[in-house]
């Protein structure tokens, strides 16, 4: 149960010369949901995007320290394409590709060079089921993905991420563009997903972190102030700053 999947050690991150993450240490446990909370601009998104080296898309960003995924420092790897197939990501706004529902889910497989039709079909079906979307789309797999509702699109994106069997999926405020009912569905999905993968989620919504996560990390101005089991953080945080944030006595 309590296997460590990812170890973050003394992570610093710089946008150009601005240090945005400061000496972050944290372990992500396998098959658990870890939530990142903190005030706007504290570096949650920045932190999340270190895990799949998304920052490498832009110039002038710099990492220091280590992020060990299964013991290997992913900040040092050259093969980003391989890394990113191990680390899935879901964004705030649903990002279905402009192709059919089926092709969306199959896209990661195509990139991996999996071409056998029956295999692809099996994986697509499995992933859509895991994302609790199969029943809603099984009769229209060839319709464009954009024909789905926002909440369905978000689940489609999750299915797409699941298809390549990532070790971990990163979620950056995955429900902040959705209405409450779609949000509830995604939250429920998340709590099931941890059986098959590991989840790291950034959320603006403290209550969401409370509802879905096992572990919660509270960040403030680029520092990791407190990291503990979610119950602990919400009933009896160790740090004054966390308490203040949690009880809404901030700013």
């Amino acid at each position, binding site marked *: 149960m309590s296997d460590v999947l990812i170890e973050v050690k003394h992570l610093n991150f710089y946008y150009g010369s601005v240090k945005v993450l400061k000496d972050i240490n944290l372990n992500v446990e396998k098959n658990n949901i870890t939530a990142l909370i903190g005030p706007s601009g504290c570096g949650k998104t920045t932190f999340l995007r270190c895990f*799949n080296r998304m920052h490498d898309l832009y110039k002038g960003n710099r990492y220091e320290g280590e992020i060990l995924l299964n013991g290997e420092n992913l900040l040092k790897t050259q093969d980003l394409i391989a*890394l990113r197939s191990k680390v899935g*990501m879901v964004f705030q706004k649903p*990002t279905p*590709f402009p192709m059919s529902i089926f092709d969306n889910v199959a896209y990661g497989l195509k990139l991996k060079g999996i071409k056998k039709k029956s295999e692809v079909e099996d994986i697509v079906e499995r992933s859509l089921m895991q994302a609790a979307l199969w029943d809603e789309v099984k009769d229209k797999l060839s319709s*464009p993905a954009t024909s789905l509702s926002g909440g369905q699109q978000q689940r489609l994106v999750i299915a797409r991420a699941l298809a390549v069997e990532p070790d971990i999926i990163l979620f950056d405020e995955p429900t902040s563009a959705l209405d409450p009912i779609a949000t509830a569905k995604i939250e429920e999905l998340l709590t099931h997903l941890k059986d098959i993968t590991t989840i790291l989620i950034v959320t603006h919504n403290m209550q969401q972190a409370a509802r879905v996560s096992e572990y919660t990390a509270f960040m403030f101005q680029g520092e990791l102030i407190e990291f503990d089991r979610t119950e602990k953080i919400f009933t009896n945080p160790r740090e004054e700053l966390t308490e203040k944030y949690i009880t809404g006595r901030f700013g």
Partner: protein
Amino acid sequence: MRIEKKRKIKNYIALSLATLTAIIGLFWLVFILTSILIKGLSAINLSLFLNDPAPPGIPGGGLRCAFIGQLIITILACIIGVPIGVLGGTFLAEYGRNNKLSGLVSALADMMTSFPSIVVGVFVYTLVVRPMGHFSGYAGALALAIIMIPIILRTTEETLKLIPWELREAAFALGAPYYLVIKDVVYRGAATGLFTGIMLSIARVAVETAPLLFTSFNNSFLTLNPNQPMPSLTVTIYQYAMGPYPDWHRLAWGASFVIVIFVLLFNIAGRFFIKKRLKK
């Protein structure tokens, strides 16, 4: 209460004036289209399309060579301009986004789209016509291509930028290399927009006159060799309208009519595509 009455009267007057301007705008359009329609229709007959120009006074002359020349020049211009424009626009919107050079290119291209086209004509004249010693279809095509490139480049850039950035990040996050992101996600998402944009750009450039005046010039014979001076509809209209003969004027009206119809069709088609995209 008096102030409210005053406000309501002001409101009424101002809105009436705005409506009046709209009527005036519409008036010009109707005015222009009806004149072309009336004068152009009377010039339309088969010989306009099938015959080459006849000397003044002899009936039955047509503009076959101009139609064909126009077509050849436009196609050649597209062959040069479309790939460069699309690839360049892609570079600006993708690999080169946020870099200063692309900003400069984009700004320059933007300005070039409103550039005096006659200057482009002059430019290509010095570049091609003078060294070769004669006017040619190639020169005309090059001039049109030079006008076309910034337009297509900008349309491409703008269309691609409409694709949300997160969509690309999502593809990267799955491990796709950039060229596949562009091919599978960006181009696919922007396909109709790109197509429409390019078609409208071509339609706009194809009916330019000024850049052809000193490049492909004119020719009253049918020629399929782009290395020769080549007639085009627009330059022909220019010369015939300037000329003193009623026959020429008639042909010019006919050609104008054809061009206007062509432009109308292209625009309608373009709008149809845009609507279809919006529906999706």
